[in-house]
């Protein structure tokens, strides 16, 4: 599993997160509205996962490991218009 709940309010995204992770992630986030996502170990994420991060506006702890995520996606998420 590339999505893990480690502390009561911290979700870890690790390695390459496939589209299925989006659902898991979303259900966790719905259950814990105050949770944050630590994606420092995330190499790659499917657009569906990124969409969940985007749509929920969850707080992110980064930067992510993957170069593309770090360079382009993370900044795009922080400047998002919700």
């Amino acid at each position: 599993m590339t999505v893990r709940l480690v502390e009561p309010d911290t979700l870890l995204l690790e390695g390459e997160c496939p589209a299925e992770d989006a659902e898991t992630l979303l259900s966790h986030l719905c259950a814990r509205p105050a949770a944050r996502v630590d994606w420092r170990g995330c190499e790659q994420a499917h657009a569906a996962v990124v969409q969940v991060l985007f749509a929920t506006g969850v707080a992110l702890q980064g930067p992510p490991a993957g170069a593309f995520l770090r360079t382009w996606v993370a900044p795009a998420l922080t400047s998002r218009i919700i």
Partner: protein
Amino acid sequence: MNELLQQFLIEARELVTQATDDLLALEHTPGDAGRLDSAFRAFHTLKGAAGIVDFDAMARALHAAEDALSQSRAQAQPITPARVGDYLTCLDQVVQWLDHMEATGEPPTDAEASAAAIARRFGEVPAPAPAAAAPGDRWVRDLLEGSTAAGTARTALRYRPAPDSFFRGEDPLKRVEALPGLLALRLEPAGPWPIPEELDPFTCRLVFLALLSGPPETVEGLLEAVRDQVDIVPLDEPTADQPEGSSLPAPARALLEAQVRLLAGHGGEGASGRLSSAGRVAVNVLRHVGEAILAESVSRALAASEEANDAGLLSSAIGMALAGPAAPSVEAEGSGAPSPQETVARTLRVDVERIDALVKLTGELTIAKNAVGHLSRLAHKGADLPTIAAGLKDQHALLERLMDELQGAVLRLRVLPLRHVFQRFPRLVREISAELGKPAQLVTEGDATEADKAIVEALFEPLLHVIRNAVDHGIEPASRRAAAGKPDLATVHLRAVRQGENVLVEVQDDGGGIDVARIRQIAAERGVATAEAVTAMGDAEVLDLIFRPGFSTADTVTDLSGRGVGMDAVRTSLARMGGRVGVETRPGKGTKVRFTLPFTVMVTRVMTVHAGGQAFGIPMDMVVETVRVPRGRIVRIGAAEAFALRNRTVPLVSLTGALGEARHRPATGDANIVVVGMGAQLGGFEVDSLGERLDVILQPMDGILTGMRGIAGTTLLGDGRVLLVLDVQEMLE
């Protein structure tokens, strides 16, 4: 080269020809709807063919042209000459690509830039998808304003993946990642987000906005599969020569971008081949321009890609190299397409009927063979000789007829209509006439006349030279034409006609004719012939001087030949294919240059002669006549001999003497002389006796005899003797 590609090349060339014909016709009659339709169909089919061989750049260029044509068709707009020029340029480019493919078996890797240039020519009709460049594309402005890298951006992209993208296993983010030269990325929701509980994680509602330093064409190619979901807006090219993001020289960039495009092709057969070839090209390009570090990283990505069988890694590595920081480095030298090697068509389109004729002949030959077998059995059983002799005679006659037919049928396989070479000229005359500012049209006649393939193919250059001369020097300046009461538009006729065993090809202009007096003067000045000789010559002989080497020299390049190639080159190339060239001119009326070519190169009709116990063949098309001359009328001039024929002095060569065998000759009696002609020049061969006339298939001299002068080739006579066929031209020199 695989068959698909071969077929593609053949068809594409035919389509280009068709389209060129139609366009030239449209230039004369812009309203011709039939021609317009035909041109449109040709472009359309060409585009489809390019798609089949996965040559996307070509397909794109043609698509742009096709769009423009289709618009003209829809709006019934006449096509302007400038537009015709655009279409022709597009076809030229296509021909270059085809040449490249014929030479290398692959589409050129640098076709992107040229395709883009073509598409830009038809700019009013934006090439493929981006119909969305609606006024005030706000998102583009926002994107540009919000980005520091806006100055180097060449493409703005809005990508709205379909809502069911995720379901279909797509990852839009990965597509974005693979784009070259990403400068800015923005994410937007397709609409207001619902509350998390109502969000469907598998419905894509993301919108990607991006600025890229890669050219729009490349981006478009990469996003081909989701074309309906993207808006691509080309931005003005950066003002600096090269984008700040990269200091790669333009040709290198183009090559790298082409590799990215190549990788975007969907998997399937050949995907791994594409991967490794794209990777290798990219690495080489980067090394070549001195970007060792980038080359190394691309090379690593290639290895990783090959291992994972995923082109994405490689394509993004190349993308990074394109956008990445790179120190200015060694300039790449013109790394364009390899110059198309001399493209000699190796395929032949043959009419099915001709093949059928061969099949039928084979059947008849089998029957004849069986009949001979039967005769041999009869002989074995001791049948009487007269019966067998009669049977053999019949079968021999039959076989002779069949062999004749077979020979004819095989030769006809090699025969092509002259259209293949003629069709290139209307276009060239259009250009030459524009270049020289002399309005001229080309009228072609008899282009269905057939000749051997080798001849049809070799005719282009000499014809080009002669036609160029006709426009350049034959046709007078407008003022002189007007004074002579000639129409402004000059006409050059190009005609072909079959005459017995020969094919005549003539180029005739309606210009001022050749000034014979001036030729005399030039010839004497340049030492082509002595002043006395020139004075003694008749007009026809003087005219013939233009074919002499040295007549057209470098300082007359602009004045007379335009290309620094003299008419002697024309004569030489004609001679090489067994033909001759002659010129006729009428002051004030024009000039006619005539090529006399053998119908086939394989069969030569010769007259056999005997001299010194050896049989020689003299090509019939060189023989003017045979005469008997009393020896008393042969005069010795120094080491040479000559005789008078109808008030002309004709040099005489004794065949026996010329081939090294000295022999005492009787001083009385008559000499048998074969008079041969080359252009206006005559010569005589003295022979012992005349023989029959034969059709021979000439074997060129090979081995140690290759360099032997005076002999064109050999053939075997029925009795097993070798017939040496003379090269008359060399003998007389």
